């Protein structure tokens, strides 16, 4: 586990072996009755355990929802550069790219800026430079200094860049005399241009569709019509007899593109000259001038590009805003505001605000509590806490209630942890209540008073040793709550870590022992599965004193305590 000890991971019910059917009546489950104990050492466990912050919550189903049991839904498309929101109907025709003035550098992919080329007016310009004082514009990369001059393109206006760029590209790749004897070559040269080839193919197949009577009138709906669907299904077999017969009756099957006029580019021996030319160019220009795969794939216009000076700026790809729906009830759990400039959410139900959070700390901490996030120097590197086997240790388990109702909690844990190393675990007080959460101000006040409590382990111990009296030091007691603040309750957990070596292996030689340890990686990690059941009541119509509706929630979590010493 990558997380530092002690950690708590929460299990999403979706991946439990009992499946989603059970998750509906999870509230009635008794962990030790009809549901198997969650085994954190099971190889599958890693797929269902998450830190609390990664989990969502469906209030309709009253269940935890992990990234696997929500469906993403695209709310809208927008350009990250100009923040223009693109209507979903236009996304496809614009190739998922911004069609305004947003372009990315083909060399390094950072955004390009439109800049004006300054004409010198102080005589530094070469005399005889015939160009007048018209302003010219460029797309300019502020990071790697690439400009459209690298491909020999300048713009006459700072707006409508896409239009001007397309025009420049057309001028470059359309050969002037299509009626010359070299017409074949012109076409094949044009086909190198990806867009051109696509257009020709598109026209050809649309015509084919019309001829064969397929109703699909555009690419988008080609597979949408029932007739087409039936034809495709028949290709793969598995159709009713009637449908099969009908499809055979079709007079003429659709033809595929056959020539260059129709958009099919085939290899011909005359291409060899061009290949030679390319090879020659590669040899003389070297690796640095050759376009990388990444650069060639940046935009369809670059698909055929071999050299860096053939790379065209790539229109910025659109981004999406996505909402997340519960897979079971289709309710939105997360729904961002559709406006592209806003980072707010309309709906955002996260587990953090809906299920009690468990946290563990040693009752008698040895040394200062380490937080790996605050370790500054490498010599103070975080070390996993080491647990001595077969000696009882006490931990404080704190549950914090995020909801505004008093919650009744019952905890259940197997007496011995599952896995190869069996540790004994006892919760001294398995059922208790946690007070409701209040507003932030209340919480701040109450938590500040709670830190002064003498029950704070390290502090009270220090006090006791200073004053020489053990007065005021609490003793953990079965059935008693250890500590309680307004919305959190702590209980004592007693753990006797199991021994890593089976008793029989004590006599073994060193290397043999090593072997057994190696084959059981991470078996020395002490993880305790705990089933938490929370019960509370809510006002049915949101009014106080009215009818009350009981609510229940049950979930497994795993407490990572530390590593057992070998």
């Amino acid at each position: 586990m990558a997380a530092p000890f002690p950690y708590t991971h929460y299990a999403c019910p979706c991946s439990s072996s009992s499946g989603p059917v059970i998750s509906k009546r999870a509230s009635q489950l008794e962990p030790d009755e009809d549901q198997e104990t969650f085994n954190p050492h099971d190889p599958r466990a890693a797929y269902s355990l998450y830190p609390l912050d990664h989990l969502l919550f469906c209030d309709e189903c009253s269940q935890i929802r992990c990234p696997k049991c929500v469906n993403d839904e695209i709310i809208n498309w927008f350009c990250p550069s100009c923040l223009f929101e693109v209507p979903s109907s236009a996304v496809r025709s614009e190739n998922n790219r911004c069609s305004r003035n947003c372009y990315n550098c083909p060399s390094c992919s950072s955004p390009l800026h439109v800049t004006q080329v300054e004409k010198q007016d102080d005589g530094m310009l070469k005399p005889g430079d015939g160009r007048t004082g018209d302003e010219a514009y460029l797309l300019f990369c502020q990071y790697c200094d690439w400009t459209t001059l690298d491909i020999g393109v300048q713009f006459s206006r700072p707006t409508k860049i896409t239009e001007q760029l397309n025009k420049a590209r057309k001028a470059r790749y359309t050969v002037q005399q299509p009626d010359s004897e070299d017409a074949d070559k012109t076409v094949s040269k044009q086909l190198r241009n990806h867009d051109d080839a696509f257009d020709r193919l598109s026209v050809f197949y649309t015509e084919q569709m019309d001829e064969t009577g397929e109703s699909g009138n555009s690419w988008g709906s080609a597979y949408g019509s029932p007739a087409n669907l039936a034809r495709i299904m028949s290709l793969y077999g598995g159709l009713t007899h009637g449908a099969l017969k009908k499809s055979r009756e079709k007079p003429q099957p659709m033809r595929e593109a056959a020539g260059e006029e129709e958009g099919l580019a085939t290899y011909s021996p005359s291409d060899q000259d061009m290949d030679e030319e390319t090879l020659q160019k590669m040899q003389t220009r070297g690796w640095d001038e050759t376009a990388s795969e990444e650069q060639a794939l940046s935009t369809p216009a670059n698909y055929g590009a071999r050299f860096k000076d053939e790379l065209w700026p790539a229109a910025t790809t659109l981004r999406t805003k996505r909402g997340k729906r519960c897979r079971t009830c289709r309710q939105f759990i997360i729904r961002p505001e559709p406006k592209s400039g806003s980072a707010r959410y309309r709906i955002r139900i996260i587990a953090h605000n809906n299920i009690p959070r468990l946290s563990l700390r040693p009752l008698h901490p040895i040394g200062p509590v380490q937080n790996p996030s605050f370790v500054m120097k490498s010599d103070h590197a975080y070390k996993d806490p080491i647990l001595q086997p077969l000696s009882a240790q006490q931990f404080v388990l704190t549950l914090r209630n995020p909801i505004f109702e008093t919650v009744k909690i019952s905890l259940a844990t197997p007496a011995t942890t599952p896995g190869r190393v069996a540790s004994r675990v006892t919760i001294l007080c398995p059922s208790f209540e946690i007070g409701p959460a209040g507003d932030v101000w209340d919480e701040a006040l109450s938590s500040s008073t709670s830190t002064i409590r003498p029950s704070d382990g390290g502090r009270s111990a220090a006090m006791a040793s200073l004053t020489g009296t053990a007065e005021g030091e609490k003793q953990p007691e079965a059935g008693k709550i250890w500590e309680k603040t307004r919305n959190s309750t702590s209980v004592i957990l007693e753990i006797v870590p199991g021994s890593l070596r089976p008793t029989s292996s004590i006599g073994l030689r060193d290397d043999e022992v090593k072997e057994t340890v190696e084959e059981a990686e991470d078996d020395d990690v002490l993880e305790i599965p705990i089933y938490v059941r929370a019960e509370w009541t809510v006002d049915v119509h949101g009014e106080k004193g009215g009818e009350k509706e009981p609510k229940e929630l049950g979930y497994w979590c795993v407490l990572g305590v530390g590593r057992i010493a070998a």
Partner: protein
Amino acid sequence: MAARPPTTKRTTTTSTSLPAAGPPCTIDPTAVIADKAQLTGSHPVTIAEHVVLHPYARIRAEGGSVTIGPYCIVSEGAVVGLPEGQQGDVVLERWVNVESGAEVLAKQVGEGTEVGIQARIWEGATVGRFCRLTPTEVVGAGEEVGDFTVVFGDGRRRVDKTIVESEEVRNARVKGMEKQVEALRKLVPDGKAKWIS
């Protein structure tokens, strides 16, 4: 090419009153040397006209002489020159912009070159004219970077064709440098007096 730990620690304390502590200097009267800029070592330092040294810029003539050409800017935290224990001279031609935190140990840096923030050019390297090192890029010891090269994206290099072909763009860059120097002249109070003995 591999990044090396910096060979010396940068010191931020300056002696404000002792003119004798510095290296032998030839400083053009039009240069601007901020009061907090440092000139260290014992080898000769030549600073040409219209140079701006920002506060906490450091000219380190410890391993050899340092020559800074006209209209160069050395920013805060940048170091030019070789440290104690290494030997060699460092020459910046005109219009070289050394950005904050950059370190230039190169034999020579060509005119119009920009050394980006925290970029490093190690000893013995030569960098051509109108090059650009984007922030944090590194040119290894003894390497040669040709004219008009852009070093970016973890060591990738490309020749900036725009600037090769267009004198206008080059002029624009030079003009930008000169304008920047003019602006800085008003902003950075000059303290070169203490280095001239």
